[in-house]
C-alpha cells in the first residue's frame, strides 16, 4: 500500500515538477484570472498521465480550489472539500499533499486527493493554484484483494482515524465505506500507535483473528486484516483433532503393541514362574514345556525345560526305585548332580539291602528246608539202619530157626512174610522220606525210583523220560527240591486226580532244568484248591522259588493237569 503511494507521489512530483510543465507558472496569474493556457501537447500529457495512472480526474484549480481546467466534469466534490479544508490549503508549503476528503463523490466512493501546489514566481510563499488529482479508489481495493487470500471470511480493509472505513467491506459490498463505522478494539489500538494482532470483535461484532497496523504514511489510515476466528482456528482445530486422533491411535497402537510385547515377555516368565513354583512345591509339571525363538527368555525356558526334564527323570527314577525296580538306571544331570548321585547311591543301597533281605529270607528258608532234609536223611538212616536192619536180623534168625512139623513150618512162613512185608513198608517209607539213590545217584535215579515205587503201590501207569544233555552233575541242592516237587505232584495225582496215565518228562540242559508232569485225571480248579490251601501247591511253589524257578500248573477240568517246572541252573 505504502509502496503504491510512494511510487505515485514520486512519479507525480517528477511529472509536475518538470521544468516544461512548471514553466507555466507564468500562467498562474492567469489561473487567478481563471484562465489556463495549455497547449495541446500539455493537455494530451495530462490526459496521458490520467489514463496511465488511472486517476479519476486531474484538475487544475485556483487558490480557492475552484476548477479552472479538468479532464472530466467530475469536479463537484471540490466544493464540499474546499469548505472543510480551505484554511489548511492557504498555508500549504509542501510540494505534494494527500487529502482524505472524508466525503463521497457521486459514485459513492470516498474521495482521496493528491494536491500539488502551484507557486508563482511573484509570490513564492503562497500558491497561486493547485493541481488536484482524484485517486481511483478501486486500486486500493485491488491491492487489498491481491494481498488477501484469506479464505471465505478473511478480509483486509482500510480504516481512517475517523474510524470509518475507506475500503469496501467484504461483508457489506453495497454499503458506502464511509458509512461503516469501525468501532472495534483493533481500530482503537491502532491509532494509539499499537500494532499487533489479537482475537477480538470486529465491526460486525464477530469474533475474529485480527492483525492491524497503521499505514506508515502521511494519511491517518490503518490496514486491518481479519479473518473469522472460527475459520482461522479451523485448520488449527482440524490439526488439533488430527493430533488428538493420531495421539489416540498412537496410544492405542502403543498399548496393543505393549500388551503383546509385555505378554510375549511376561507370559513366558509367568509360565516359568508357575513351573518353578510348582517345582518348589515338589510337583513336576506334566505338560511339555515349549520354547520358541532364540532370545534370552527362550534360553531360560529351555533351561527350565531341562530342569523339569531332569527333575522328571530324577522323580521317575526315584519312583521306580521306590517301587522296587532296581534295574532302573539314571544318567546324572551333570557330574555334580548331587541329588542324582544321592539317588543312585540310595538305589544301590536299597538294592543291596533288598538283595540281602531276599538272600537272607531265601537262605533262611533254604536252611530250614536243608535242615528238614538233613533231618529226614538222619531219620531214614535210623529207619533203614535201625529198624530195617533189625527186621532183617529178625528175618534171618527166623529163617535159621528149625520148624519140625508142617504146622510150625507154615506158621514160621507166615511170620516171615509178615516180617518181609514190614521190611518192604520200611523201605517204602524211607524212600518217601529220603531215597538213598537220590543221595547216591542223583535226581534221575531218585525220580525213577519214585516212579517205580508209585507204580508198585498204585495202579498208575507212569512213563518217565529223563534227558540229560550235559555232562555236568546236578547239585544236591537242586535235586532234592525238584524231587520233592515231583513227589508232591505225584502224591496229588494219586490222591485226587483219578488218573490212569502219568507222564514225567525231564530235560536237563546245561543252564536250566525243565520238568513236565502230566496226568489224564479229572483236573482241578486252581483257585479253589489254593483257597483251601491244599495239595501242597504252596510248598511246591516255595521250593521252585527258592531255586529261582518257575512253577506253572495248568489244569483243565476233565482232561487232566500239567505241571511244568523251569529252573535255571548255576553250575560251578
Amino acid at each position, binding site marked *: 500500500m505504502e509502496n503504491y503511494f510512494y511510487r505515485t507521489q514520486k512519479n507525480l512530483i517528477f511529472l509536475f515538477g518538470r521544468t516544461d510543465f512548471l514553466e507555466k507558472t507564468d500562467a498562474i496569474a492567469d489561473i487567478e484570472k481563471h484562465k489556463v493556457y495549455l497547449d495541446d501537447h500539455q493537455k494530451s500529457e495530462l490526459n496521458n498521465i490520467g489514463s496511465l495512472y488511472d486517476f479519476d480526474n486531474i484538475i487544475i484549480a485556483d487558490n480557492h480550489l475552484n476548477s479552472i481546467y479538468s479532464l472530466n466534469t467530475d469536479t463537484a466534490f471540490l466544493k464540499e472539500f474546499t469548505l472543510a479544508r480551505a484554511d489548511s490549503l492557504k498555508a500549504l508549503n509542501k510540494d505534494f499533499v494527500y487529502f482524505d476528503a472524508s466525503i463521497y463523490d457521486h459514485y459513492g466512493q470516498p474521495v482521496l486527493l493528491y494536491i500539488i501546489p502551484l507557486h508563482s514566481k511573484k509570490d513564492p510563499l503562497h500558491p497561486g493554484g493547485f493541481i488536484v488529482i482524484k485517486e481511483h479508489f478501486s486500486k486500493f481495493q485491488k491491492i487489498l484483494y491481491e494481498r488477501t487470500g484469506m479464505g471465505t471470511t478473511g478480509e483486509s480493509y482500510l480504516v481512517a482515524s475517523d474510524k470509518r472505513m475507506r475500503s469496501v467491506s467484504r461483508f457489506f459490498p453495497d454499503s458506502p465505506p464511509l458509512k461503516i463505522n469501525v468501532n472495534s478494539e483493533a481500530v482503537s489500538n491502532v491509532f494509539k500507535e499499537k500494532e499487533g494482532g489479537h482475537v477480538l470483535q470486529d465491526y460486525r461484532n464477530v469474533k475474529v483473528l485480527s492483525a492491524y497496523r497503521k499505514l506508515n504514511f502521511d494519511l491517518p489510515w490503518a490496514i486491518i486484516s481479519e479473518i473469522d476466528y472460527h475459520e482461522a482456528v479451523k485448520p488449527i482445530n482440524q490439526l488439533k483433532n488430527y493430533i488428538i486422533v493420531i495421539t489416540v491411535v498412537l496410544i492405542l497402537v502403543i498399548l496393543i503393541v505393549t500388551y503383546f510385547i509385555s505378554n510375549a515377555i511376561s507370559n513366558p516368565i509367568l509360565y516359568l514362574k508357575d513351573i518353578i513354583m510348582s517345582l518348589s512345591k515338589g510337583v513336576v509339571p506334566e505338560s511339555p514345556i515349549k520354547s520358541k525363538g532364540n532370545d534370552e527368555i527362550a534360553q531360560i525356558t529351555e533351561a527350565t525345560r531341562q530342569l523339569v526334564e531332569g527333575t522328571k527323570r530324577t522323580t521317575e527314577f526315584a519312583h521306580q526305585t521306590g517301587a522296587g525296580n532296581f534295574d532302573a538306571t539314571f544318567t546324572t544331570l551333570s557330574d555334580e548332580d548331587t541329588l542324582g548321585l544321592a539317588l543312585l547311591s540310595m538305589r544301590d543301597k536299597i538294592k543291596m539291602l533288598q538283595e540281602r533281605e531276599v538272600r537272607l529270607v531265601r537262605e533262611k528258608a533254604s536252611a530250614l528246608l536243608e535242615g528238614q532234609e538233613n533231618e529226614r536223611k538222619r531219620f531214614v538212616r535210623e529207619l533203614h539202619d535201625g529198624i530195617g536192619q533189625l527186621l532183617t536180623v529178625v528175618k534171618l534168625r527166623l529163617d535159621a530157626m528149625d520148624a519140625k512139623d508142617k504146622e510150625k513150618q507154615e506158621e514160621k512162613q507166615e511170620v516171615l512174610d509178615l516180617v518181609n512185608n514190614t521190611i518192604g513198608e520200611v523201605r517204602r517209607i524211607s524212600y518217601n522220606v529220603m531215597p538213598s539213590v537220590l543221595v547216591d545217584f542223583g535226581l534221575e535215579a531218585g525220580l525213577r525210583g519214585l516212579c517205580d515205587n508209585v507204580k508198585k503201590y498204585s495202579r498208575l501207569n507212569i512213563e518217565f523220560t529223563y*534227558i540229560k544233555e550235559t555232562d555236568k552233575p546236578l547239585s544236591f541242592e537242586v535235586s532234592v527240591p525238584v524231587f520233592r516237587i515231583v513227589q508232591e505232584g505225584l502224591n496229588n495225582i494219586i490222591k485226587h486226580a483219578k488218573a490212569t496215565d502219568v507222564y514225567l518228562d525231564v530235560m536237563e540242559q546245561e543252564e536250566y532244568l525243565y520238568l513236565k508232569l502230566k496226568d489224564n485225571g479229572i483236573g482241578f480248579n486252581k483257585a479253589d484248591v489254593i483257597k483251601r490251601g491244599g495239595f501242597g501247591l504252596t510248598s511246591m511253589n516255595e521250593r521252585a522259588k527258592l531255586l529261582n524257578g518257575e512253577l506253572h500248573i495248568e489244569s483243565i477240568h476233565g482232561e487232566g493237569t500239567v505241571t511244568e517246572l523251569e529252573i535255571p541252573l548255576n553250575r560251578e
Partner: protein
Amino acid sequence: MSKIKLILADDHSLIRAGFRTLLGKNEAFEIVGEATDGQDLVKMAHNIEHDVILTDITMPGQGGLDAMEQLKKENPYFKFIVLTMHEEREYVLRAIKIGAQGYLLKNIENAELAKAIKTVYDGGKYFSPFVVNLLAENYGKPEALETSEVTPREKEVLQFVAKGFSTKQIADELGISIRTVESHRINMLKKLRVSNSAELIKKAIKLNLID
C-alpha cells in the same frame, strides 16, 4: 573138601551175627573176617586169605561199592557178592559195572544165599530174579513212530535245534516260552525214540524231517 572162606562186611553187628548164624549152619562155609566199613574191608581183603567177599553197600565212611571198586582195580580176581537192602537199578548197575559177581537182597532165603556163594566161588555169577527183571526192562523198546506224528510246530523247533540254536534263542525266535520249546523237544525225542538232541537231529535227517 575145604570150606569156602568168606569175608563179611556190614556195619551192623546184629546183621553180621545173623548171617554168621545162618552161614554157620552150613558146613561148606567159613567166615574168616568181619569188616565194619569199606576201609576195614579193603585192609582185610588184602591181609586175610579168602574166596568170596559179601559186602553191604551203605556203611559209614567208605561204602561197600567204593571199597569193591578199589579192590577190583588192585586185583580183578577178588570175588564179590553185594548183599544189601537197596533194590534200585542204579545200585545194581553200578555194582555190575564195577564187577560184582552177585547181587542179593538181605531178605534172601537161606538156601538161595548158599547157592549164590557156591556159584560165585565156582567162577560163575549169581543175580536175584529182581535184578534180572531190572536189566531186562531196558530192552525191547518199540521202533520210531510215523513221522506224520511230528507236528508242524515241532518241526519248526527241530529246524532251529538242528541249526544249533539254544532253547532260549528258539523261544525268542518263535515268540514262545522256554517251557513250550522244551515241551516240543521232549515230545519229539519221545516220538522218535531217541535220548538226546544229537540223536534227535541224526534221526530227523534220516527221516527227512530236516534237510
